């Protein structure tokens, strides 16, 4: 008899991102060791682990954000829909339109609320007319659960919004390029509990359309929002599996010690 309530299992879902034997070096320091992960489509995957464990580094590999760091060297394979994202043919700018990112601190552009969201569709040429753009902006702000609060102040600066609103604005901006994957690096760590709950509710809705990968220091948050969880420690992927399993009955001693607060 198995009492674990299965929301979804790794086995019977489509794989969106497939990582194999991924190693990352910063200069002579190795940050990630031989990581293999399958990221499921239309699910939330949480990356947890103590500071410096490599979870953010790994997240940044998924849309080649590490390319901007000169000393960073990545080996192995990361396939998005079976295409190697590190292939010479792949344009990292287009890749990042498909794999959007939301950062720890809300970082709206110093532009209006409207222009923050409209920026991506404009530069990627995703819209043909002003009314198309209006529609996209409205749709994205609605999807980010922000529309009601900003519809009368679309042309005020995005930086004038509250922290929680700014973060939702960044999510609206990220979804405006119609991405397939959304990477979130501790998206709630600068927010109060109400704003955090709103973002978590939003993440649960976003996974209907996107594959979401979230790095979080809050294990309760990982437990609440994700279907699958990966635990990193010292650059190694220690354990990866269904969130319910990881948080109730992990296989590895290190996972158990970490989630029960026995080492940091």
């Amino acid at each position, binding site marked *: *008899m*198995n*009492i674990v309530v299965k929301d979804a299992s790794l086995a019977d879902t489509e794989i969106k991102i497939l990582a194999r034997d991924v190693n990352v070096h910063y200069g002579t320091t190795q940050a990630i060791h031989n990581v293999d992960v399958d990221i499921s489509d239309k699910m939330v995957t949480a990356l947890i682990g103590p500071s410096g464990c490599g979870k953010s580094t790994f997240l940044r590999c998924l849309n080649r954000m590490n390319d901007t760091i000169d000393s960073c060297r990545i080996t192995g394979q990361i396939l998005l829909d079976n295409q190697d994202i590190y292939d010479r043919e792949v344009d990292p700018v287009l890749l990042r339109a498909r794999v959007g990112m939301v950062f720890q601190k809300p970082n709206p552009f110093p532009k209006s609320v409207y222009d923050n969201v409209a920026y991506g569709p404009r530069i990627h040429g995703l819209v043909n007319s002003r009314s198309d753009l209006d529609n996209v902006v409205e749709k994205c702000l609605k999807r980010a659960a922000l529309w009601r609060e900003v519809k009368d102040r679309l042309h005020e600066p995005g930086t004038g919004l509250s922290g929680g609103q700014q973060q939702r604005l960044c999510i609206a901006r990220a979804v405006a390029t119609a991405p397939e994957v959304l990477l979130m690096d501790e998206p709630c760590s600068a927010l109060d509990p109400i704003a955090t709950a709103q973002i978590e509710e939003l993440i649960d809705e976003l996974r209907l359309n996107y594959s979401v990968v979230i790095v979080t220091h809050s*294990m*309760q948050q990982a*437990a609440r929002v994700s279907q699958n969880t990966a635990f990193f420690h010292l650059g190694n992927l220690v354990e990866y599996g269904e969130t319910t399993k990881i*948080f*109730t*009955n*992990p296989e590895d*001693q290190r996972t*158990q*010690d970490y*989630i*029960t*607060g*026995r*080492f*940091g």
Partner: protein
Amino acid sequence: MEVGPHIVSAFDKDLVAIQARISEMGGLAEDMLSLAVDAIRSRDVALAEQVIRMDDRLDALELEVEDVAQVTIALRQPMAQDLRDLLAALKIATTLERIGDLSENIARRAIYLAGRKRVRLSSSIVRMGRQTSQQLSEVLNAYIARDTEAARGIWLRDVELDDTYNALFREVVTYMMEDPRTIGLGSQMLFVAKNLERIGDHTTHIAESVYYIVEGEPLGDDRPKGEPLSLEILE
């Protein structure tokens, strides 16, 4: 898996506090059971009354376990084995409280039996009582040691207690048929035996909790059980 100390040491103190209360409850339930059986054997009304009074302390301890567990869950958000430890502690506290109630009930019947004439059936009851006490002690030891093998052994062996109960039932019914004047007394004996059999079942629930704490999965739902009692001897 090994369990080291928490980074937040107050968390460990909470867990120790719960463990200490469960241990006290276990000791109390053991004493109540063996004293209640002693009261039947020695026809000692004062001893039986002592058992009845002990139940108050057991009830109070159960409430304390619930209280500490609730606060710990709210404040510490326990995960994995810590969470299973707490959930199991709540279940075991309830189970031990029930074992106390059943022992108290045996003590009340001991007072009744002490006022009636001595019958040879008492020695069968006392034997079954010792068998039950033994099983309770073993399961409490298995809980303290988190010994899943011992727990599983008790879980499988409870069927022997069921068999003892069935044999005793037949013995009492035969006795009552031979001399209908003993029906009142025999019925009391049957209730005592049934209480002991229920206590045996409760020890298997504790065994299941021990297994769940350590393994994170249930022991199973196909525990061997005694044959359902047939009353063909009455026909």
